[in-house]
């Protein structure tokens, strides 16, 4: 059985309720700026360590916001936030930042955005002349062609750190392993579930679950943004509660929770 309340589209009721609750909570916490306790995220903290390592070794940093196969989605936004933060650190330390772009037809749009973000960070740090657009080349709209060119760039330039956060498919292991081969510290993050295990095996640091999506807020240190992380925790608790309730009710042949979730 599915509940249908006009004019809500059938099957979207529970989604709408969750969305509105999340919207209300986020708006509340943004307004109040109550910063929750935020645990350290080693993979995000490692970005600074990686840039420091590159400074000591006098080698460049290579970073990518991923392939963005479906345009600028949540993962790509997170990848761009991290690329922007990396660019800021690189500009501050007079480091060269290599950012190979491509991977999908949609990544042409991401490329322009990424270039603007990186250039902005170099300008903000007063290192406008250090920004080189040729260090952010567009390699290919095809996944493996881009990955090969990415690896080729790593083999030629021998970066000290490889930061690959964003949409990463099968080519991710290829890139992270070549990074390991050239002696780079590999920091990765993806929301593509099948790849998380592969990246955990091949990277020095990996962002898992929503860590990557919260990275923008985490790095901004802005109370308004940090406060929104509390929404994620509350929504998680609500969903765990619904999960437990579902198990109990279903054990007594009651399908109320299933009906609600399907509605």
């Amino acid at each position, binding site marked *: 059985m599915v509940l249908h309340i*006009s*004019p809500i*589209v059938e099957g979207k009721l529970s*989604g*709408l309720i*969750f*969305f509105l609750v*999340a919207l209300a909570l*986020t*708006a509340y916490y943004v307004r109040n700026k109550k910063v929750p306790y935020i645990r350290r995220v080693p993979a995000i903290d490692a970005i600074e360590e990686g840039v420091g390592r590159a400074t000591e070794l006098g080698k460049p940093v290579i970073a990518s916001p991923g392939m963005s196969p479906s*345009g*600028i989605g*949540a993962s790509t*936004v997170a990848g*761009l*936030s991290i690329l922007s933060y990396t660019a800021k650190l690189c500009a501050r330390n007079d480091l060269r930042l290599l950012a190979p772009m*491509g991977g999908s*037809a949609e*990544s*042409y*749009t991401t*490329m*322009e*955005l990424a270039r*603007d*973000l990186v250039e*902005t960070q170099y300008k*903000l740090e007063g290192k406008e002349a250090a920004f080189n657009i040729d260090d952010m*080349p*567009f390699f290919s*709209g*095809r996944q493996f062609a881009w990955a*090969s060119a990415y690896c080729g760039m790593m083999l*030629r330039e021998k970066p000290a750190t490889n930061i690959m956060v964003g949409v990463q498919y*099968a*080519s991710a*292991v*290829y890139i992270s*392993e*070549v990074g390991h081969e050239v002696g780079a510290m590999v920091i990765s993050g993806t*929301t593509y*579930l099948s790849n998380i295990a*592969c990246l*955990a*095996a*091949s990277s020095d640091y990996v962002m898992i*679950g929503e860590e*990557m*999506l*919260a990275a*923008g*807020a985490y790095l*901004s240190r802005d109370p*308004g*943004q940090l406060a*929104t992380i509390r929404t*994620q925790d509350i*929504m*998680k608790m609500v*969903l765990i509660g619904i999960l437990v309730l579902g198990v109990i009710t279903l054990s007594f042949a009651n399908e109320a929770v299933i009906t609600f979730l399907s509605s």
Partner: protein
Amino acid sequence: MSILRRKEFFVVLIVLISVFLYIPYFFEVPQAMTNLENWFMDTIVIIAAFAVWVGFITATRREVVRIQRRRKGWFYAVVILVLSWAMVVIGLGIGKTNVIFEFLQWAFVIPGDATIYAILVFYLTSAGARAFRVNSLESALLTFGALFILLKQAPLGEVLAPWAGPVAIYLQDTIAMAATRVFSVSLAIGSVVLAIRLMLGQEMALVGLVRRVASREEE
């Protein structure tokens, strides 16, 4: 300061477009609103189509510079330029179903992709070899779990160790599945909250202009 450079302008734009995309998703709306939603989606396709050319021209520029300066591997830049321009000229001139276009696709693009994809197995093995070093209880559990899965998946595994199959299926369908669901739920929540942060103008990383404008104002 021009209104086009203000943070509020971008926030209003994001909120308006989000509302026009969210409302038809959740509510039954008149056809006009669905048409507007489709128009937004078509706009994305058009912007992407123009962006393809921007990317292609950038790539061409980069390869030409490589050839002019005789950088290491410049010969490969010649190959890339010739092949990519050939694909464009033939594809636009005589169509994608043409024999020459299909030949280029099957002779160069597909084998290249397949080769790189095949190489992955070696990289996966080397990553696995590093990950499965037993130096703690967790890594021991991981290694033994992987061993069961390997025995089930390997061609002779189930003949050599028939007991491994049911254990591997249990690990995959119960333990690994539970962990996967945790990731799915947390990623879904993370994505929703990120979208809301964007709508509320809290995460303006996408609009790189904002910080630049802020710094100009400070100047």
